[in-house]
């Protein structure tokens, strides 16, 4: 079993059993959807339909309806494409790279992030397709025998590499995601009560039964797919960057592009994961599985990749001057001080400055701050692509052809439409699919669950004697691990001293002490036995009382002080009022 250091924050808070995990993750799927879901779905659907309308109009009239001109022949379309592919980078990174590095915290987010990846790549893929203008000839990008004297597609072109990279990425990502989903669909299938749901989920679960041999293969398949997907993640965005880097346009043909694009993609992908997951965990009440620590880990990734991106921006600037190439230098000067200075400034603020704020522990553990920054980063990364693409070409070698790019309403409509469609898919996913890997979370419950780490629940329970005489369905009621524990013996003298200093309370006034982080069901009982029932009592505790409490219980010395139970209790009192 995976071992985890005792000082690490637990990944699953509170006391959970295997059944609780199933229950918590399946509940939102089995219950009726909340009203908010319908509202959001409606909005997303309207935006999506509007986007489809714009695309149909574009296909009917031609890509002249985009705000492109002779000089700026590539603008919002490719910006949106790269933006979506970038967002699509976090999912596979989380599930593949973090799996190889055995980062167990990925389990809170990998399923949802992979879904995000797949839908984001759908949206990304749409842009090159509609950019062809004649969508129905899209199959021309494939090397198939044809009637043009067998003229093949150009394998020297990064645009064709992109076709292969994106389609491989999408299909491998989909397979990876689905293989993980199969056992979880089986869990939902075995719980389903409605016949239609049962039928659908048994179809989706492919008849998974959870045999030992199947699990054995499952683990190897996950590992090998992770091994394959890891270089894939890096290759895909490298190849996307080749679309620019292999050209001869100043501002595009820089060798730093591949690593810089990959870092940028991870940066924006994690930001999108934050945006979505912060809402999802609240809406689906999954706070125990995805809590501040997970958010902090992700913020650290955002900080690191954001710093790489920042370094790349500055390196680019420096090299444009140091190279001595006037055209190169002008491209960058124009970016920062030309007519698109505002795009450059937003990119610099959003992507270079904002992630640096994550150095402060308080900020990177603040959920509201994280949510705001995640949106800022997404905006910044859109501007990054816009800056790279448009500012490099809008003033070319011939000043008489210098021009500006203004988006048409179709440009904007298609972009908004993809955001709508993305959320249509995402909301359907959140409604019908398990948003966290049920089976995988169970594998880390005993090593990273809070109640198992602090000794309240047993990792290796003692077998209980079997009561049934005959082997025909001798049902026994479900037992709780907590009940097995022995009653604690309490030091009466010390506890009366403790009660004296924090005040008496009756059992009738009892508050839910488990709400204080650090107190589990067992410890709550211990506190009750001593005579501590209310938040008010806990809030009066100081160092002296903490020490007394430690001496009585003999459990987790120093913990109450470290976690500031009194402070927590004070907050809870305020909340109650």
């Amino acid at each position, binding site marked *: 079993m995976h071992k985890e250091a005792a000082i690490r924050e637990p990944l699953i808070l509170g006391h959970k059993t*295997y*059944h609780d995990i*199933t229950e918590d993750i399946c509940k939102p799927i089995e219950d009726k959807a909340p009203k908010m879901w319908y509202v959001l779905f409606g909005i997303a659907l309207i935006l999506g339909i509007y986007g489809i309308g714009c695309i149909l109009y574009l296909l009917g009239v031609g890509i002249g309806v985009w705000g492109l001109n002779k000089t700026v022949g590539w603008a919002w379309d490719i910006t949106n494409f790269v933006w979506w592919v970038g967002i699509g980078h976090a999912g596979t990174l989380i599930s593949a790279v973090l799996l190889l590095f055995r980062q167990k915290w990925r389990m809170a987010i990998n399923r949802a992030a992979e879904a995000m990846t797949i839908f984001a790549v759908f949206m990304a893929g749409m842009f090159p397709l509609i950019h062809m203008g004649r969508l129905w000839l899209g199959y021309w990008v494939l*090397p198939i025998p044809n009637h043009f*004297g*067998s*003229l*093949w597609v*150009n*394998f*020297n*072109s990064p645009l064709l*590499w992109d076709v*292969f*990279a994106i389609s*491989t990425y999408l*299909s*491998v990502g989909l*397979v*990876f995601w689905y*293989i993980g989903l199969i*056992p979880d669909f*089986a*869990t939902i299938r*075995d*719980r389903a009560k409605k016949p239609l749901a049962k039928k659908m989920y048994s*179809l989706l*679960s*492919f*008849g*998974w*039964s959870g*045999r*030992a*041999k199947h*699990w*054995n*293969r499952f683990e190897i*398949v996950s590992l*090998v*797919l992770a091994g*394959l*997907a890891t*270089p894939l993640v890096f*290759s895909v965005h490298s*190849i996307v960057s080749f679309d620019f880097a292999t050209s001869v346009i100043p501002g595009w043909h820089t060798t730093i592009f591949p690593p810089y694009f990959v870092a940028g993609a991870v940066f924006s992908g994690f930001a999108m994961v934050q945006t979505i997951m912060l809402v999802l965990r609240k809406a689906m009440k999954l706070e125990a599985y995805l809590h501040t620590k997970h958010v902090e880990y992700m913020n650290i990734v955002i900080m690191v990749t954001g710093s790489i991106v920042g370094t790349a921006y500055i390196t680019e600037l420096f090299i444009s001057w140091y190279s001595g190439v006037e055209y190169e230098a002008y491209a960058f000067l124009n970016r920062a001080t030309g007519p698109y200075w505002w795009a450059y400034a937003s990119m610099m603020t959003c992507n270079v400055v904002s992630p640096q704020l994550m150095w402060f522990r308080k900020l990177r553990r603040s959920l509201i701050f994280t949510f705001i920054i995640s949106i800022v980063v997404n905006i910044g990364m859109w501007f990054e692509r816009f800056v790279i693409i448009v500012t490099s070409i809008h003033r070319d070698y011939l000043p008489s052809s210098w021009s500006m790019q203004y988006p048409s309403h179709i440009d904007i409509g298609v972009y908004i439409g993809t955001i709508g469609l993305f959320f249509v898919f995402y909301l359907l996913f959140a409604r019908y699919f398990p948003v966290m890997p049920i*089976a995988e979370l169970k*594998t880390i419950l005993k090593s990273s669950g809070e109640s198992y780490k602090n000794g309240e629940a047993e*990792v*290796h329970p*003692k*077998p*209980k004697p*079997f009561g049934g005489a005959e*082997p*025909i*369905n*001798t049902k*026994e009621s*479900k037992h709780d691990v907590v009940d097995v524990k022995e009653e604690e013996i309490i030091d009466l003298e010390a506890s009366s001293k403790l009660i004296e200093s924090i005040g008496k309370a009756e059992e009738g006034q009892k508050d839910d002490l488990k709400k204080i982080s650090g107190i589990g069901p067992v410890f709550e009982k211990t506190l009750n036995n001593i005579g501590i029932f209310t938040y008010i009592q806990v809030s009066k505790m100081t160092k002296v009382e903490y020490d007394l409490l430690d001496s009585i219980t003999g459990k987790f010395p120093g913990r109450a002080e470290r976690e500031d139970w009194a402070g927590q209790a004070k907050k809870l009192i305020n909340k109650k009022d």
Partner: protein
Amino acid sequence: MAEKVIYAMYDDEEILKDGAKLLVSKGIKIEEVFSPFPIHGIDPIIGVKPTRLGIFSFIYGLIGLTLATLGMWYFMIEDWPMNVGGKPNGSYLENMLAFVPISFEFTVLCAAHGMAITYLIANRTLPGMKADNPDPRTTDDKFVMELRPSQNPSVSQQEILDLVKKTGIIELEQKEI
């Protein structure tokens, strides 16, 4: 042909592992274990061999690499040498650098999909298949061990049942299949 099957249910994977060790040490063969998640360390106890799927994946990857190489050689060198930006197109080797990305992508594509399909077929988990876990709770929080007396001719059925009862089970069921 009707065959007796014993299903012993546990509510903790560690208890099941201990139980399995005890049964195996008495020479009883454990036919199958059903669990809601992979139990680490169960495979050597009940004699599940390491899977060869990784090797398969490697072979699929090699096939993909070969196909990509052959394809690009034929399309770009043999059938219709294209002069794009003056890139050399006289021989595969000279033009190879431009082929690296697609060779890599296609290798990964074949390795991943080949392995996934092999995995699904080997497991017999395909669309439309019926699940055969003995109890619906085995995909939630229960663990079931399947024993077949016919596989253990040296011990009587009663002996097996008596032993199993000592291993901390919570339910016991017998079925004829």
